């Protein structure tokens, strides 16, 4: 087996706190995003709040970008994070699409 070349720069001491904070906020903003989409689907919030939801998704992307850069990711980790963010964007929508379908089918 050919051994691949891995270069892993050391993380600067002052970067640790921002790294942990941004990692936490990736998911916290993600929760806001999913939560707001849910509230809209439940008709507890008006549709205009989608703007707010996508704003949180945008913040999530920013935190992810920040995290991936500050830890000096390899190209693969960058791709993994892109996949995760796309999954984040789409999962609530897929979920409610399916829920509506199944409710049409099984209820009323």
């Amino acid at each position, binding site marked *: 087996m050919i*051994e*691949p070349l*891995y270069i*892993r720069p*050391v*993380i600067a*001491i002052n970067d*640790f*706190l921002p*790294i*942990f904070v941004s*990692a*936490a906020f*990736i*998911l*916290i903003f*993600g*929760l806001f995003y*999913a*939560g707001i*989409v*849910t509230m809209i*689907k*439940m008709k*507890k919030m008006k549709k205009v709040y989608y703007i707010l939801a996508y704003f949180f998704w945008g913040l999530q992307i920013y935190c992810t970008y920040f*995290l991936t850069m500050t*830890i*000096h*990711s390899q190209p*693969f*980790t960058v*791709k*993994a*994070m892109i*996949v*995760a963010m796309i*999954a*984040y964007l789409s*999962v*609530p929508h897929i*979920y409610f699409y*399916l*829920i509506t379908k*199944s*409710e049409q*089918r*099984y*209820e009323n």
Partner: protein
Amino acid sequence: MQGQSNFKYEGQKLASWYFTVAMILFGAQLLLGLVAAIQFIYPSFLYGILDFSIARMIHINALVVWMVYAMIGAVYYLLPDETGIEVVGIGIAKLLFWILTLAVTVVVLVFIFIQVGAADIKTIWFITEGREYLEAPRWADIGIVVVVLGFLANTFLTAIKGRRTGIMTVILSDMIALAGLYLAGMFFTDNISMDQYWWWWVIHLWVEATWEVMVGALAAYALIRVVGANRKVVEMWLWIEVAMLFGSGILGLGHHYFWIGTPEYWWEIGALFSALEPLPLVGMFVHVLYDWGKENGFKEKAGEDTSSNNTPALLWLVSNGFGNFLGAGVWGFFHTLPQVNIYTHGTQFTAAHGHLAFFGAYATILIAMFYMAVQGKYGIKKLRATFASKMAIFLITFGVVGMGVALTIAGYEQVLIARAQLGATWDAFFIAQNQTWMAQAMDWRLIMGVVTTVGFFYLVKDLLSISKNPKNVY
């Protein structure tokens, strides 16, 4: 206890036995956790009598065992409900309960009084296996497997004979996987890398795959029972959750194979799949929120009372949605990328995550099951939260989150000093341990541990007396 048992089925009565032992072990877990936490601050406390290693070992083994007890209990509880019939072979099921409880008692007594043995395979068979979480000696492992096989047989035969539901199908297949995985931890090898490789099969594939699916199934059952959600919709969602949980969790195992001697490709696999692991947790959270809101909407329209028929269970269920996301999701994601994990691996960060995740993902929903059993036992139509219910959930949650925060601060300090700056040596370790931040974090962990324990006593009191709450009597 007051009142007569109203359980419709013997299986549910057996479930309440399992729950009772689970609560006792939960108490033991907290007690030994306090001992270990005190030793962090006053190392001479019980030194040479009940050393940290023994206290910690009982702390985490009691944790795993009480949760397994509660899960078995939960299955026996919902089995007759789901299938519509009594548990098949209930006599044997009860016998197995006593055998298991006896075995657990013997193991704990040996842990406390014998503690360690000679470097001989006999020690592995009869005293301790010495692998974190899997310390139970080999004889007990075999006993556990036999009992679990019996339990599986009971459930299987009942499920085949009775009504077949999606929830039961998920639980059954999950239980088989869960029991099968235990076998991966039952061998001895001189090769520590090999040892750790298979050790994680048990630990990770339990808590991040099979147990999570179990939680999904229990939440589905609770949503139907407590909130009145539509079964078909809930079951469909359950299958999607299974796909997402197993799809990310099985290969997410890679995040434990960064540094144990295993090849580099696990970096990529572990990073990708474990970065996806929080997604189903978000999904579960959204799901609980949505179903709860929707059913309330229906009731409002119909002019019905919108309060749930079991408020304490519902409160714990909602805290499960949050806690799972926070403890497993946020705190898991914190340290799951290899670039970060090389610094955090094996620090107090890990302990912070361990506490928040086990509590948020499992303790919460299992406590919800305890409340459902209390409701079933006394045939209470609407179980309302008492003062003690509220104190219990508030103090326990506040305490565990407080411990999590303290440990996170400790972990951060350890990462900076012992890992990034000093390079993880013996001296580096103790220099970091001596820092004020670390010392104070350990003080706060103990204080918050005491808060948790007080909450636990409220929980015990409430479970024993909530049926007497005048508001619950008709």
